[in-house]
């Protein structure tokens, strides 16, 4: 594993830190249209780590993080968990394709995955509550838009002094 990522520092502290920060951002008291436009911070951060460090963050981590999100959101137990594990599965399938493209093109590759994440979440809502949560759809778009700044930020975080040489 260490041979795979020669320049990287131990990725665990940035992972934990960014996850915690994403959760805090999600728990801020959002209201009205700000809530409708709120990006799914946790999903984007998860997606970043599942694509960039798949050996550390996988479906099981995504599932557990989803469970925490369920508690915080008072949504059904397993709702976020299922959505995030679907997201992690998607990223494990498409991670090569995403990382192959440069940053500006990645947004369009990430959007479908986030859409699937949203659809799983909304489908569970639909089955359990009987209405479709349209109100979260714009948040899906803003999540995809968040990908670019977040990637830049987290890359800066995870390898502060690494040479430019990407192992890609």
């Amino acid at each position: 594993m260490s041979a795979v990522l020669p320049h990287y520092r131990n990725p665990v502290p940035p992972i934990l830190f960014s996850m915690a920060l994403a959760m805090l951002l999600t728990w801020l008291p959002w209201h009205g249209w700000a809530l409708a436009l709120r990006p799914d911070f946790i999903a984007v951060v998860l997606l970043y780590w599942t694509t960039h460090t798949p050996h550390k963050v996988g479906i099981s981590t995504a599932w557990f993080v989803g469970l925490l999100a369920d508690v915080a959101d008072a949504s059904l137990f397993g709702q976020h968990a299922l959505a995030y594990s679907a997201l992690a599965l998607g990223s494990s399938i498409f991670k090569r394709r995403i990382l192959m493209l440069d940053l500006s093109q990645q947004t369009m590759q990430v959007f479908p995955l986030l859409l699937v994440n949203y659809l799983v979440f909304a489908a569970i809502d639909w089955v359990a509550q009987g209405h479709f949560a349209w109100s979260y759809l714009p948040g899906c778009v803003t999540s995809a838009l968040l990908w670019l700044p977040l990637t830049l930020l987290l890359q800066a975080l995870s390898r502060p002094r690494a040479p430019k040489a990407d192992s890609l």
Partner: protein
Amino acid sequence: MDNAQPVRFFKRGYPPPVRFAFFALLSMFLLVVDVRFRTLDTIRYGLSVLVQPVQRALSLPFSSLHDAREYLYTQSSLIRHSEELQRQLDSDSARLSQLQALTAENLQLRKLLELRDRAEFRSQLAEIIYAEKDVFRRRIFLDKGTQADIRAGQVVMDTNGIVGQITRVYPLMSEVTLVTDKDQAVPVEVLRNGLRTVVFGSGDIDHLTIRYTPVSSDIQQGDLLMTSGIDGIYPPGLPVARVIRIERDASYPFARILCAPIAEVDQYRHLLILTGQTPLPAAPEPLPDEPALGKRKVKKP
């Protein structure tokens, strides 16, 4: 490319689809258990102890901003406010003395008729610490939980009327389901003529509906609906809603009646939790006392 294609000398665990299938099944199981049996509340309790302090800390800057704004009220507005309150107090005290006389008279009459006394209830003041983000399920969280002897099923009201019912209690907070929530039902009676009916939440914060009331029933626009106290959960005589529109369509057996809730949930920070109610004697056929939150089939008469 070696980042994305790990060398498979050693097999590490199961392939992603298998893992996903496992976790998907696990989540499905949790979902079904949560929806059907609601037995996961203890796990929620445990995790909420971890989550809740963080949430409170996060909402702190916003609430302190609110407090600061209140602190910076101008003097004139305070004077005006206090005058208004004084006037209100004067008129209220006159009505209150009248009410005391009426209460005494009522008590005497009830004694004469050997009716049960109206149940007394205590109340606890609680503060809203957190409003749920889901647009359809507008639940709110109060800062009193099991530590303040709050139990699921207790009634929450503001100064005007019924706000909702406690549905989940955590160690340091409790979750309130609003009367306007979808399929939340409150047994009420019309103040004007005592007609008993049930008012249902519509999922919209401004509206309640009365569903299964015949077209011919005597309900008028502007009628005040009070809790009837028949279910033993809501104490009698608390205002719930006012009728704002009635549609009587002869082709449909029931009238469509739209009401507006009296309580103003999204305006205040403080609410009252009614505790210490004396329970009614057990009904002849005891119903399973689950909180009226989950899917419940309403039998059409």
